[in-house]
């Protein structure tokens, strides 16, 4: 199944909530990139990802996916975006297989064979009920649901934040295999675990307290800091005025 590449553009994108403000951001994300949004909790990463995924409608500025404002393309555009939310949502009485079958009806490019392959790779028992899944299993299921239709834009919101290191490594490996570098799919993920960023991303967008702090490729970052480990560079950059 082929996918049509998607690019993303944020122009003056920002939000104002009573307890949180995301200052206007300008960004261009191109097909084929693997982009990490990094920053501490409350930096504005999830808000940005939700807006790009067409799950936020109250914001300033523009969020364009495939050169059109995403709000004008909802709900259709959601079928072309794979979104792994921070928390798995669904009917907890459903089994994993039922949940995925339910979702398949909403995505025209859903690939059942690929879904089974993914279930095998992440070793997720399809007979388990959603309400009984551990946090790690829930993340794996969310990943399978987001990836089974091979979306041109894959958004992963904190995919590894609450799972153990073993499962983290396993999941990152699967992500790496499923969306190989050099393809035409855009992968956008948020994390505050800097080692994960080092492993997956080739571009890093740093955010702090609702502001964009920096936007560089991982190579540029490492060249600037004379080959230091990426996680150390990011740690220094994000923590410099804490």
């Amino acid at each position: 199944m082929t996918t049509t590449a998607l690019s993303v553009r944020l122009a003056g994108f920002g939000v104002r909530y009573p307890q949180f403000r995301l200052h206007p951001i300008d960004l261009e994300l191109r097909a084929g990139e693997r982009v990490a949004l990094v920053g501490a909790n409350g930096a504005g990463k999830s808000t940005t990802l939700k807006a790009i995924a067409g799950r936020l409608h109250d914001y300033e500025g523009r969020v364009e996916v495939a050169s059109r404002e995403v709000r004008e393309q909802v709900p259709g555009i959601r079928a072309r975006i794979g979104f792994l939310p921070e928390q798995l949502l669904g009917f907890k009485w459903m089994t994993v297989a039922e949940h995925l079958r339910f979702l398949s009806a909403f995505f025209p490019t859903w690939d059942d064979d690929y879904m089974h392959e993914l279930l095998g790779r992440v070793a997720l028992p399809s007979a388990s009920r959603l309400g009984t899944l551990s946090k790690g299993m829930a993340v794996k299921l969310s990943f399978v649901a987001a990836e089974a239709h091979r979306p041109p834009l894959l958004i992963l919101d904190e995919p590894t934040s609450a799972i153990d290191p073993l499962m983290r490594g396993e999941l990152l490996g699967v992500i790496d295999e499923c969306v190989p570098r050099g393809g035409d799919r855009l992968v956008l993920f948020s994390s505050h675990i800097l080692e994960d960023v080092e492993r997956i991303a080739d571009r890093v967008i740093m955010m702090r307290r609702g502001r964009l702090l920096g936007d560089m490729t991982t190579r540029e970052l490492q060249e600037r800091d004379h080959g230091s480990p990426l996680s150390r560079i990011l740690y220094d950059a994000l923590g410099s005025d804490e």
Partner: protein
Amino acid sequence: MGALSLESSTMRWGRMNRRAFLNLLSIEYRRYGPRKTSLVLMLGVVSVALVASGNTTLNGLAFLLATAGTSLFMLVPATVLKDKMSGTMDFLVSLPTTASVLVGARFTAAIFFAAAGAVLVGTAAGLGLPPLLGPVEPVRVAGLAFLVTWATTSALACAAIALLIRFNVSALVTYGPLIFVAAVFVAAYIYERLFGHPLDLIRAVMASERAPYVIGAILILATAGVLVASFLLARRAVENYLPQPDSIDW
């Protein structure tokens, strides 16, 4: 070529919406579960048996009829509240399908369950009311009871769904029961002032050739009006739905 691809894209979207609608509808049915349905059906059977044996008063009959019929029609609105509390509503509104499909599936389920409840009410009314009313055809009584119950409970269920989607959980929990109790008292008062004793009204309606048809037509129109207004309200509420701050994570 452009027109052709637009057409095929529209057709594909239409097909996806149909699939999504049927999928949501089957979930609406599955989630209420055979257990709940069989409990209500048992209640219906008990009602009919009591009426048939003649061991019930008019009040007792009315109570049983109301219980059997209304238990079913409240199933769908009740799950909207449950969905909001558990965060499942956030999941549903994030699916790549239109608000019309989401609301349409839920309304269809509500109307279906209201019909099942109305069948119980109609059957029991056809069996139990003719002895109290005098010379009337049981089939006419059953038909009118079915229609009145179906129309009223469908309208109530869909209006309740729309309001439950539109307003946040804390507002519903705080003001909902108060508004409901007040509405029941006001409706009962208005009814009594306008129509007097229920049996007198039913006798008068059944004695007339045209009255049941007129009532039926008015009910259908009024119900259609409530359904359209509720659909528009619910659709708008889904389009602007925000995650519930008071939903319970699981």
